[in-house]
């Protein structure tokens, strides 16, 4: 541990840039601190027995090495990067940041996006990380309401389309779409045309031919529910509730997670089931090619480009961090071309920086959805649980 800290300290750094950054963020951090202190204290006041228990924890854990390096705010820092468990980037990318900045990045994952946000809410004030990456449209509202983030304006935002920006507390890093996928051969064998829009799914040809994920337990399942809410609305001639009632009447199959739907029930690609249409990602067909060995000339599956739900993934500096300036540098790096151009083939989503060049195979095999559906993160946060409950009532009477 110590050797590692020393190595980092010895490396060359760019002090001028960091000083400028720390000046900017030091001011903002103080205002945030003073605003957030009066809010709810996350823990009950420790009683004597709790204090005793904490002492016990200490006694039992003396063998644990505390990995605390330098605490000088302008020196090299250890930045703890909290991500959801689908975060992936090529070898050497984060290391390049470490070399250039002198900081060290420690990666932590905290389950899916929802779990990660909830963990951060519970550790507010004494966060387990300094930067969070991967909070998406679905759970961003909760993170903002709970005041998880310190404001930060990245220098890289100029290259990001305004449409992706929703708050000055978080920085958009990438975006992707949850779309219907279909088994090209499977549908052709049955002589059925692929659906062209969501409403088609309630028609007789698609009876028993669609598998979706439970929005209560699956993130693409929730995105698909949100797509139907955005497409049909809550009021009017044909609401999302009516659409789902008709889907149930048309024998829709529901699984608890994406793996069971895609591998267990879906007939296309790597799937071993018998259902030709599945809720998956716009990037699943290119993944079927890129992850196959040998690579087929054409994807066995395709995307229905209408009725997709767009999810934007954000990064933010967790309030309470002691390394805010360094955390800002890491977010700037996440918008740099080096990081952004590595995103597509690792996480199969589009980079937020529009100057980033897309890999040729990504361009070749990815179908870009037309007018993807979306909802305001705060609207999602206010209604998410109610929508899931109503969905459960409809699908599970």
């Amino acid at each position, binding site marked *: 541990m110590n050797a590692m800290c020393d190595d980092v300290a010895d490396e060359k750094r760019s002090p001028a840039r960091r000083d400028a950054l720390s000046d900017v963020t030091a001011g903002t951090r103080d205002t945030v601190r003073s605003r957030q202190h009066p809010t709810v204290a996350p823990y009950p006041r420790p009683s004597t027995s709790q204090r005793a228990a904490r002492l016990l924890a200490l006694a039992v854990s003396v063998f644990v090495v505390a990995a605390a390096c330098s605490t000088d705010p302008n020196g090299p820092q250890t930045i703890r990067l909290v991500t959801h468990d689908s975060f992936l980037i090529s070898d050497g990318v984060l290391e390049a940041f470490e070399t250039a900045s002198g900081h060290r990045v*420690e990666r932590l994952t905290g389950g899916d996006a929802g779990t990660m946000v909830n963990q951060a809410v519970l550790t507010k004030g004494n966060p387990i990380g300094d930067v969070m990456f991967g909070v998406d449209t679905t759970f961003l509202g*909760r993170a903002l309401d709970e005041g998880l983030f310190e404001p930060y304006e990245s220098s890289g935002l100029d290259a990001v389309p305004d449409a992706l920006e929703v708050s000055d507390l978080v920085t958009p890093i990438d975006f992707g779409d949850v779309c219907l996928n279909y088994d090209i051969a499977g549908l052709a064998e049955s002589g059925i045309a692929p659906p062209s829009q969501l409403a088609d799914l309630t028609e007789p040809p698609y009876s028993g031919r669609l598998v979706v994920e439970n929005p209560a337990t699956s993130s693409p399942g929730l995105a698909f529910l949100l797509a139907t809410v955005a497409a049909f609305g809550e009021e009017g001639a044909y609401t999302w509730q009516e659409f789902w009632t008709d889907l149930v009447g048309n024998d829709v199959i529901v699984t608890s997670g994406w793996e069971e739907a895609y591998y267990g029930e879906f007939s296309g690609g790597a799937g071993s089931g018998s259902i030709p249409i599945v809720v998956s990602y716009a990037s699943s067909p290119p993944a079927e090619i890129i992850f196959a060995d040998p690579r087929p000339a054409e994807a066995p599956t395709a995307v229905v480009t209408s009725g997709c739900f767009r999810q934007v993934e954000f990064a933010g500096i967790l309030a309470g961090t002691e390394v805010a300036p360094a955390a800002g540098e890491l977010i700037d790096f996440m918008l740099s071309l080096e990081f952004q151009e590595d995103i597509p083939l690792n996480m199969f989503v589009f980079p937020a920086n529009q100057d980033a060049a897309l890999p040729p195979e990504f361009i070749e095999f990815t179908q870009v959805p037309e007018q993807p559906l979306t909802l305001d993160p705060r609207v999602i946060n206010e209604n998410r649980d109610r929508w899931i409950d109503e969905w459960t009532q409809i699908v599970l009477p």
Partner: protein
Amino acid sequence: MDPDRAAVTSRRNLLLAVPPALFLGAFFVYPVASILALGLGSAEGPGASAFGDAIANGPLLRAAWFTTWQATVSTLLTLIVAFPAAVVFGRYDFPGKAALRAAITVPFVMPTVVVASAFLTLLGPGGPLGVDLRRSVWAILIAHVFYNYAVIVRSVSSALENLDPSLEDAARTLGATRLAAFRRITLPVIMPSVVAAASLVFLFTFTSFGVVLILGGLEFSTLEVAIWRATTQRLDLALAAVIAIVQLVGVSTILVLLSRTQRVRRTEVPLVASPSRVRRPATTGERWTVAGVVGATILFLGVPLAVLVVRSLSFGGRFSLQNYGELATRDPRGLFVPPAESIGNSLSFAIPATILAVGIGLFAAAYLSRESRRLAEAFDTLLMLPLGTSAVTIGFGFLVALDQPVDLRANPAIIPIAHALVAIPIVVRVTTPVMRSIRTRLREAASVLGAPPRSVWRLIDLPIIGRAIAVAAGFAFAVSLGEFGASSFIVRPDRPTLPTAIFRLLGFPGDATYGQAMALATILMVLTGVAVMAIDRFRLGVQADF
């Protein structure tokens, strides 16, 4: 013994309870109490209203009922299905017995998401059964028997092996039929082990998560699933706390009832350290019985596993070892490290977890076997509770409680600690019944002859319970290898364990990643089998005949 010496002994016994009490207090009671207090404190109005809301909540009541029902039925079914094998393993010797005894532990560690895919193939319309059991309660029950088969077989057969054959022989000499001798002599003696093993199965199935979620589909929801949803998705900590308390109360009630039956049954019986009763099947009938039971066991546990192995050997539609070769490379990029590194990571967590669990578990078992007062009974229940508590409750409890004095929340040391928490109940359950059966007279005789307590332990207790310790350590190791806590613990993605690596690989579409996940699952199977077999061979203490 005079009263003064009795008091001294009692105080000395109490010292045995100190290490497990400290461990449980710091890593179970304190974190769980913290998250529950946080949840109940966050409810609007008094905590009672949160209970009222929950009780008025129809789906929740249904989940509570279904949880209890499926756990009870799964436990009974596992007992019925696994008992013949337990008797065969405890009574007879046959070729390949040691390997098979280790192999039956393999299902115990397999990640649900992998087993589920095998079950979906077998129980689907195209499977060998010819009926579609997917998304039915049968799929859940069969999977629970598959997972817990080894718990019954291993603990009950080890009790049978330790049984003094002269007891049954005496009954037979006095004219009892074999069945009568078994029912009236053997069964009552091994009953504590049967009850202990059944209570473990009940706890495992009561808190079953993946099996219910994946195989049961939408219609079946357990309290565990409800807690997971309320905590990780809705952030409704008040609701989560209420459900967790319902779960804890339910588990404690069942445990107390079970320990009552054990108190009635507890008798000191002569145990032997060497399995003298175990022999080759002699008659044709015995040979057929043994062959039938062994064959059925291999078929039931082996076929779902074979589906995974076959899949791991298929690459691009052909037979190939390429999926295994790919594990050493970083491609395709499902992970930050070559998947093969997860093997070393898993071992580096499993070894300290096993040592911790066996060490602390033996202190607890030694205390429980010497005490029968109410205090010991309560302690016994407390020791079992981590198994009956939602992983999410414990994981989020760690998160809110273990940030000081040393921040353990993201420290790798928390992983073996969490694994040990789950493994200690197994160690206690497997070793306590055997320790209790050691005749006090033996210990007293040794003391009278001048042996200090440590020597009594080494010369009397250890040889007799050596077999049980091996069984317990095997399970503890398996629990750690198979534990999948990524949903509720902070983990380091650059140090994936085998189950987390498999899960990550399955998260990416594509034929090649799927094949690699199956290859890694096969490695997990082999590793578990080999490790448990090695632990089985490792007997503590000296073998001696009494």
